């Protein structure tokens, strides 16, 4: 699972240690490694927008973090991104385990996941579709740099082509 290790290394290199998340079957493969790693302070949250608030608050006090969620949970974040992160210019690297792609078995996961790029475009937030392991080091490191340089959230969409999907 090299993609997870690349994410962990990218976060460590950028000193992003406070991790807000609502678990899902894809990102949990990374999160469970981070749970065992004393570098990270893990904040399991009851809802994704709550995690946006927590990591934003930490940034306001000088500590960097990141967010992990499933594509369905992104829908729970939109108001927080629109009314907190964008107007205040609060950067957060986001890692979203995408459902709704090749191999999806649950019809209810498809519409929201398909809408994510359009929503991010409408909000003016940059994102990267992560599909190949050989591109990961540049995109993850560069995406985190971009996030803090632009002082806005940057979303990394973890494609099923990369992760194998939920049941892989």
């Amino acid at each position, binding site marked *: 699972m090299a993609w997870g290790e690349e994410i962990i290394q990218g976060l460590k290199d950028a000193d992003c240690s406070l991790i807000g998340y609502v678990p899902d079957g894809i990102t949990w493969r990374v999160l469970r490694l981070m749970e065992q790693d004393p570098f990270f302070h893990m904040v399991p949250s009851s809802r994704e927008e709550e995690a946006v608030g927590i990591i*934003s608050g930490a940034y306001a*006090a000088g500590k960097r973090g990141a967010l992990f969620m499933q594509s369905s949970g992104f829908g729970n974040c939109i108001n927080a991104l629109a009314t*907190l992160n964008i107007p205040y210019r609060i950067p957060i690297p986001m890692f979203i385990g995408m459902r709704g792609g090749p191999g999806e078995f649950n019809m209810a996961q498809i519409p929201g996941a398909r809408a994510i790029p359009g929503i991010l475009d409408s909000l003016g937030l940059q994102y990267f579709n992560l599909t190949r392991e050989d591109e990961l080091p540049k995109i993850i490191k560069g995406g985190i740099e971009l996030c803090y340089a632009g002082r806005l959230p940057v979303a990394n969409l973890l494609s099923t082509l990369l992760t194998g999907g939920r049941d892989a």
Partner: protein
Amino acid sequence: MLRVDAIQSVLDRVKDEPIISNLGGTTFHLHNLSEGRDANLYTWGAMGLSSSIGLGVALAAPDKKVIVMDGDGSLLMNLGSLGTIARQDPKNLIHIVWDNHQWAGTGGQPTHTAGVTDLAAVAKGAGIPKVEAVATLEGLEEAFNRAMTEDGPWCIVADVEGGDKPNRPEVSIEENLQRFRRTFGQV
């Protein structure tokens, strides 16, 4: 107890501790009572998230007492935050809820706390170790004095009168964040 007097009473008991305020009247009052206080972080949106933002500040700055001024309507939107706070157990977090039993900013419609919902009981049930429900200024001051000296996390649910109409201040949101961050040595 008037919310404006309650906020002033908290301001009288802090030095440079960070205060995160809920959108609407609480942000307006806090700004109007302490304009120029760089350790205030005012929210203008993100309804429900002031306790989450405060938790993030508290985790990032464990050596400072961190004060959140929330509202009943907002907390009802993010009750899960109480469980997350309890699980993280930040000793330095003081979460105050100005409970005026109404969505004051939208016309004073009654919230659930105007009926049977008891936010202090919810906080206890979520696992917050120090919970106080207060209905007078003296009660608030006693609870807040303890919260400033004893480990938390604390949740103080303060019954305040509704119907106040604080003036809406002019605030630059980006400048507010930059000033707040400078109190933590950040550029």
